[in-house]
Every structure is written in structure tokens, then in C-alpha cells.
């Protein structure tokens, strides 16, 4: 079995454990969400060729995944290892600002990584996604 396949299986196991723990309301594995996202990052690193096309897209995606992993780690550290994603927006003061900044950076980096792969940026069927992403910042204000 190749290294990236091993990481994929490990990601599925850890992510499944995290979701099952949340569903059953049991504390199964602390920092499981952070580990799962770090495994996705490892998968991206293992599958990144050193050269070739879309180099910047891959770099942006890795930066976005690293930011998401940091946000998840901060939320879990604040809540004893089991807080993500339910307590993601419950931070106070400077920590909340850091978490929000990292999350916004992660969203921007992942969005830019996807847009780098698009051959033509403006298409009619991109409109729903554009509207949804424009409305998403207003979600916590409800």
C-alpha cells in the first residue's frame, strides 16, 4: 500500500471516530478533527509533484489547509480537545479575533486555489456559488 493510501485510510478512520463521538456524545479521541485535517494536508504534500502545472494552486491549497488545521487546533485547545466544530464561534477577545482571521485566510486561500484551476472565471453557472459565498459572511449575524 502506498503512503498516500495509508494516509487516506487513516484520515477516514480518525474522521469517522470524530463524527461518531459527536453523534454518540462520547469523548473518544481528543483533537481528532485537528489530526484529520493534518492528515489531509499530509495527503496533499505526498501527492504534490515538485514541478509541473498548478504549482501556485497547490501551494494555496496547502496554506488553506494549514490555516484550517490551526483554527481547529485553537478551538480544540480552548474546549479540551472536543470543541470543533460546535464551539468554533464561541471564542472571546483576542483568541476569537485570531481564530476568525485564520478562518478567513483559510477560506480565501482555498477559494483562490480552486479559482486558479478554472479556465474561464465568469460562467453563468458560477452565479449561485458567488451569491452563496457573498451571503455566507452574514450567517453569524442572524
Amino acid at each position, binding site marked *: 500500500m502506498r503512503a498516500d493510501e495509508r494516509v487516506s485510510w487513516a484520515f477516514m478512520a480518525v474522521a469517522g471516530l470524530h463524527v*461518531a463521538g459527536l453523534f454518540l456524545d462520547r469523548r473518544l479521541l481528543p483533537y481528532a*478533527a485537528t489530526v484529520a485535517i493534518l492528515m489531509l494536508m499530509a495527503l496533499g504534500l505526498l501527492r504534490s509533484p515538485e514541478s509541473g502545472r498548478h504549482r501556485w494552486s497547490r501551494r494555496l491549497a496547502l496554506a488553506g*489547509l494549514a490555516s484550517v488545521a490551526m483554527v481547529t487546533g485553537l478551538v480544540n485547545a480552548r474546549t479540551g480537545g472536543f470543541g470543533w466544530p460546535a464551539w468554533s464561534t464561541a471564542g472571546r477577545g483576542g483568541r476569537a479575533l485570531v481564530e476568525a482571521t485564520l478562518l478567513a485566510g483559510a477560506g480565501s486561500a482555498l477559494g483562490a486555489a480552486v479559482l486558479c484551476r478554472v479556465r474561464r472565471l465568469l460562467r453563468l453557472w458560477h452565479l449561485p456559488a458567488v451569491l452563496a459565498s457573498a451571503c455566507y459572511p452574514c450567517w453569524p449575524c442572524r
Partner: protein
Amino acid sequence: MNVLPTAGHNDRPGPDRVLSCGSPRGTAELRVDAVRVVESARQVSLGPSGLPPGWVPPRLDASPGVPSADADAAGAGIAVVPGPPDWSASMWYAPIDWSRSGPAVMAAMLLLGLAALTTALFPRPIETGQAWTSIQA
């Protein structure tokens, strides 16, 4: 032990309020007839604590065979009767409460989305010779 008032008893004769006390081992229902409680309270002289002197509250036992309340409490309109088993206290027998599964669904969607994004942006590299093998097949 949770105590939940059971609704829907005001529109029919009989006990005015039913309080259900449950655990995985069983439940006990405390049936309170408000009219009889008020009538009996008028007839007795209350002590300094606001209760009749010597009155002992009925014991709520969670075992299936719950004894009925003592005669004084039953006469005052309060009775303890065995209730149906309360499965909500046991996670293996309880029906799934979908309203509490929100964080799990949210985590599953976020992790699946990130996994889909990662596998789309980092496709599996084609090994040397694989393309030639697939053409031959």
C-alpha cells in the same frame, strides 16, 4: 433522575398533573389531583414549614414495582404509581434524537468537503507504466 410533566391531562377527569420520574431501570409516576389536594389542604392545619405536621412526601422509587403512596398522601390526592419504562436514559435503547446530531452532521459535512477539495486539487499521480498497462488492457 429526570422529572417531566406530562401534558394533556387537563381535558379529562382524573389526575390533574402527572409527573414522571425515570431511569433505565423503570419509572414512577406521581399523580396529583389538584382539586383533592386543595380540599384536603383546607381541612388540615399547616405546620411552620407550610406542610401538615407529620406529613412525609411520597417516596419515588425508580424500580419497576413501585409501591403506591402511603394512605395519608393518597387521601390528599397524591399517588405514586408505576409508569412505563423510560428508555431515554439509556443510549442503546433510546430512539435517536436527531436534533442533537447537529454537530456530528456539521463535522461530517466539513470534513467531507475538505476531503473532496483535497482529492480534487491533489489528484493521485499516475505511476510509471500504468498508462501503458491500461492501454494494453
